[in-house]
């Protein structure tokens, strides 16, 4: 690829710069995550019987904490690492850095998608795994295994990816009070979808559109593969499947293109 558009070397330098610029915050986060895991270990130790009965039942709690932490780190990472990117004054150090917008965009996406959730997995999940290995009598099961068993479904990953891209886009779109404006936008969009879908469903129902649809037909499209269509499906189920593809595949791409476009054309 053209040297002026993409070079892995420059992406590497951008990574290094991001990590070193945030090294103190990363170190503090790592310590807090490890401490949290140790805190849970002692907390559960206090509440369980001396012979260790019931310790395994706490695995799901630790696993869910890890899922929550990884989710938060994943979704809010654009705010954490790139809050000032489009700031008219503070953002100059980023925008004037000699790297292409594509290189900056790729580096930012990789930091948010891979590094940020990995922090939770390594430091909370890692400490938890270490404690389980060292003290199997007092703590059984690995939170990280629970995470991978429960979280790594295509649907969850795609939904998390959609949310990340939406937050990334809002981080580029809004200059000030980003968290407030992003939350307000999410609530507004959710309300809008709720109002429109309620109105449309009510209208369709009043015309008897769902009359031929058996109650036994599952319309929980989340249980299916993303492109799993059947010829006998009720048209409404097909519509929901298409809507799901739109939300989980098309919308993240739209948000990514939007973020890139803002980065490319932003004036300071």
């Amino acid at each position: 690829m053209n040297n002026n558009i993409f070079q892995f070397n420059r992406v590497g330098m951008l990574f290094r710069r991001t990590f070193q610029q945030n090294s103190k915050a990363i170190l503090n986060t790592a310590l807090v995550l490890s401490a949290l895991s140790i805190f849970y270990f002692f907390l559960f130790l206090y509440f369980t019987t001396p012979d260790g009965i019931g310790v395994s039942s706490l695995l799901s709690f630790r696993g869910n904490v890890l899922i929550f932490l990884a989710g938060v780190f994943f979704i809010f990472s654009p705010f954490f690492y790139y809050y000032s990117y489009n700031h008219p004054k503070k953002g100059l150090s980023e925008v004037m850095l000699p790297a292409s917008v594509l290189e900056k965009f790729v580096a930012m996406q990789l930091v948010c998608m891979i590094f940020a959730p990995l922090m939770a997995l390594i430091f909370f999940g890692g400490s938890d795994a270490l404690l389980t290995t060292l003290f199997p009598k007092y703590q059984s099961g690995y939170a990280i295994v629970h995470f991978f068993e429960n979280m790594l479904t295509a649907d969850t990953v795609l939904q998390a990816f959609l949310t990340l891209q939406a937050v990334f886009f809002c981080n580029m779109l809004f200059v000030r009070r980003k968290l407030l404006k992003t939350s307000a936008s999410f609530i507004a969009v959710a309300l809008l979808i709720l109002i429109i879908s309620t109105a449309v469903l009510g209208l369709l129902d009043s015309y008897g559109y769902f009359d031929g649809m058996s109650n036994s037909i599952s319309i929980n499209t989340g249980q299916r593969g993303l492109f799993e269509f059947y010829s006998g499906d009720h048209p409404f189920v097909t519509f929901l499947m298409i809507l799901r593809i739109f939300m989980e595949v098309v919308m993240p791409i739209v948000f990514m293109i939007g973020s890139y476009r803002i980065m490319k054309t932003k004036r300071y």
Partner: protein
Amino acid sequence: MIAINNLSFKYGKKEILSDISMTLEAGKIYGLLGENGVGKTTLLKIICGLQKPFAGSCTVQGENPFNRTPSFLSSLYYLPEDLEYIQLDMSITQFSKLNAPFYPKFDYEKFEIILKEFDVNGDKKLNKLSHGQTKKAAIAFAIATNADLLLMDEPSNGLDIPSKTLFRRIIVEYVSDNTCTIISTHQVRDLENLIDPIIILDNKAVLMNASLEKISEKLYFGLYSSVPANALYFEPAPGGYICVMENEDMGESKVNIEALFNATMQHKSRIQQLLA
């Protein structure tokens, strides 16, 4: 190096620059002068690609700055007036180690020397420095990039008097000979004996873009005990009046930039005609 053709710029409906044209060459230190709010910073931002012209064009070494390509960005350094972008929780040395690799011609030795000349400790954290110290660190980094184009917006703001003198010397001594430097300021005295040519912006347009040689050829600057009848501009000074007059075979004189600026503001069309 820089070609600006019929460039116009607006912030919303307010026109800041209107149909300006000029060319700037490598190896010169341009002084961009003008009153507050006249569009100096905007012009610098257009040249470095932070803003896009509303009409007309600006090219730097044949490239459109707004494309912000890596090769373009590594060939210039823009030092803004506000230094919030550099006030980070890291030492000056760490900052240079992280950012210098993006500038292929960065000279670490030069960076260390300039910091030493400015008496700034490289181990100090950027967010713990005073405004003047931060400015010195930023100036040192800017010069050490050895960029082909160096844009400085009000670089002397926040520097004490000895540092202003030092700044002028450092620019002369350490900026590469083939670098095109543009220094914007409204404090013209700070750049005396440094800038040549001089660009004066006023009322959305370029009022003057001339070398000191040409200015002293066309205008005469002198100290008189009383104001001569043909003086275009005068201002009281110890020992009489500093006067600016048309140079009618009076020989060469040292250009007083502040008097030149004020004279130009008072007799815009006359001085434009003289220097055309």
